[in-house]
């Protein structure tokens, strides 16, 4: 058996041992992964004057994966994943947790160990107060298009299009298209299509996508590859990315203001316009997209035949098609918003589209300004049980149930937490840059050098990258 196959078996065994209590066997889900694909691609990393630099790769495969910041990868397989360490904590930072203000004693590092990450985005920083300097991903499998966002994890299986956000996880299974933001969880099997946002003592939001309808969009069962409209949608545009990864020096496809950043590993097509302070991250796809001032389009997002007025946040993996968004609209992780050319989707300013929302409509749908939207919406009528004005939601002081959505706690706290986070995202991304101050990723990411690293081409170690240490 070759080294890469041994590594594969070793990781699966470790994950299964961690998940034995849940009776979960990862083997049939990952047997479908063609290991021969993992030996074909180079890995690459970015160097900037703005981010700390410290990489160590050992006994791992890094095919098509990208690294930025401080990161260690040991005994792991990373396929077309982004390990983006540009928001890690720095030595001397103060971390606020509950009533504690904890000082960070060293520069934070992402540590991936004995794990298999497939087309996964790792971003943000550890929110675990017990592990501030180490954002760990250990004994974990994450499947296609999943996000591990500020979520240290150990012994977990993360399904396709799933998101773990600001949550420390031990021995958990996160179902397909499930979104979890819950502080800390252990030994939980989260059903497919769960959207769970919890701040203990303040609020608890829970939504469950209807099983049958969700399967039309994403379906992944043991023994067969992921299927559904999401997979088809991404696969249809896969070819467009081929060129940006093949060509070393790529020309800028559209004019980009000096305060904005269009990542060279993104795709831009058609009549696309980029406003000031715009951030377009890598693996984003723009086609006939109009992006107003301060808009950000994060990794793996697709904006097609749509306009975003300004300071809109399109979180990792969100897709917006045939839609018009007013300013300051937040579209959460992996949301799928699709209008039609003759029946466009309109979302009013200051609205919040919850993570993992699906709006897929044949008739025109308009969401008024200042609305909170969640779940699965396939017609205007679905808005009755899947949306509420933010003003009304903020008045909830005990409980609310609408359709498959359940909320307990203080609505105002929930709204405030989201609005605070949106503001932080805009700040971090440089949306408020005034020409001199308030720089963010849009301004800092303009100066990145990319370098490639390659695995052994043949022999027993084929596909394994040599031990590589990269320091300033």
């Amino acid at each position, binding site marked *: 058996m070759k080294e890469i196959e041994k590594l594969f078996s070793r990781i699966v065994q470790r994950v299964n041992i961690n998940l034995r209590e849940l009776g979960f066997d990862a083997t049939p889900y990952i047997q479908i992964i063609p290991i021969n694909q993992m030996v074909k691609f180079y890995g690459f990393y970015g160097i900037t004057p703005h981010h700390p630099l410290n990489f160590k790769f050992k006994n791992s495969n890094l095919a098509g994966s990208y690294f930025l910041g401080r990161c260690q990868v040991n005994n792991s397989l990373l396929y077309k994943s982004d390990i983006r360490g540009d928001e890690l904590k720095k030595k001397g930072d103060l971390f606020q947790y509950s009533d504690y203000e904890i000082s960070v004693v060293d520069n934070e590092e992402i540590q991936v160990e004995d794990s298999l990450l497939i087309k996964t985005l790792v971003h943000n920083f550890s929110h675990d107060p017990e592990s501030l300097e180490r954002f760990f991903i250990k004994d974990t499998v994450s499947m296609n298009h999943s996000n591990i966002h500020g979520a240290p994890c150990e012994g977990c299986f993360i399904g396709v299009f799933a998101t773990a956000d600001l949550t420390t996880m031990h021995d958990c299974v996160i179902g397909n298209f499930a979104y979890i933001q819950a502080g800390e969880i252990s030994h939980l099997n989260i059903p497919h299509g769960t959207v769970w946002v919890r701040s203990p003592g303040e609020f608890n939001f829970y939504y469950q996508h209807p*099983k049958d309808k969700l399967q039309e969009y994403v379906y992944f069962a043991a023994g067969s590859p992921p299927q559904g409209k999401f997979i088809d949608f991404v696969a249809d545009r896969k070819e467009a990315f081929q060129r940006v990864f093949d060509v070393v020096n790529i020309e800028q496809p559209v004019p980009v203001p000096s305060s904005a950043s269009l990542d060279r590993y993104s795709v831009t097509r058609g009549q696309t316009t980029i406003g000031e302070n715009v951030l377009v991250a890598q693996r984003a796809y723009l086609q006939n997209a109009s992006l107003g001032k301060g808009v950000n389009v994060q990794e793996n997002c697709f904006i097609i035949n749509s306009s975003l007025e300004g300071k809109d946040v399109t979180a990792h993996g969100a897709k917006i098609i045939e839609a018009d968004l007013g300013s300051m609209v937040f579209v959460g992780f992996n949301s799928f918003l699709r209008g039609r050319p003759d029946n466009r989707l309109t979302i009013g300013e200051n609205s919040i589209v919850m993570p993992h929302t699906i709006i897929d409509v044949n008739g025109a749908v308009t969401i008024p300004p200042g609305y909170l939207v969640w779940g699965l919406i396939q017609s205007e009528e679905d808005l009755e049980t899947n949306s509420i004005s933010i003003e009304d939601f903020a008045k909830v002081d005990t*409980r609310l149930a609408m359709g498959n959505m*359940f909320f307990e706690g203080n609505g105002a706290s929930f709204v405030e937490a989201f609005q605070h986070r949106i503001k932080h995202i805009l700040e971090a991304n440089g949306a408020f840059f005034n020409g001199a101050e308030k720089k963010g990723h849009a301004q800092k990411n303009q100066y990145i050098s990319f370098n490639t690293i390659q695995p052994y081409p043949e022999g027993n170690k084929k596909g394994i990258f040599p031990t590589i240490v990269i320091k300033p």
Partner: protein
Amino acid sequence: MNQIVKDFMVTLSDYATTYRGSTLYEAVLALETAKKDVELTVHPHWIVLVLDENDEVVGKLSQLNLLMALEPKTEYTAVVDRLDKFGFSSNFVASIRETSLNSELIDNYLYPDNLAMEMKVDDFMKTLSENEFIDENTTLNSAAHQFSIRKRLSLLVTSEGKVVGVLRLADVFSALIAAMKKAHNDEGEPI
């Protein structure tokens, strides 16, 4: 309390039983018949034992199991049922359950249709676990202790590995009361 378990158990032949493959309705009838048989005793039967084709006990059904089997089961109720795992308060979950029970969709669920009554006991019986057996020669003292630590209302009594009866907490407790009274009387009335 120097008696042993088999002195207090209800023998299998006197207990409410049904067979694998029988329906919920048949199980309810078995329970009702057994209750009538023991109407004059202090403690009626509250569970039905499920037997296989060799008359071996393979499962049991309590009244609670039967009620739970009759609960409406939709995708929505499944979601509500797991809310407590996701940090919602028991008050919140109870209020959602109440609301859904009062909805038109599942009105009158306690008067089930034929479909519910035809459910096979195999699908909702409680299978036996290791800690619900007790040997027939166990002393009643030890049996009382076992009830206490296992937190059960009944134990299946075995003889040479085969289930021969049921020991109920109520019977053990009756023996305990009798023993207390005897001890109290032997010491004489308090002054």
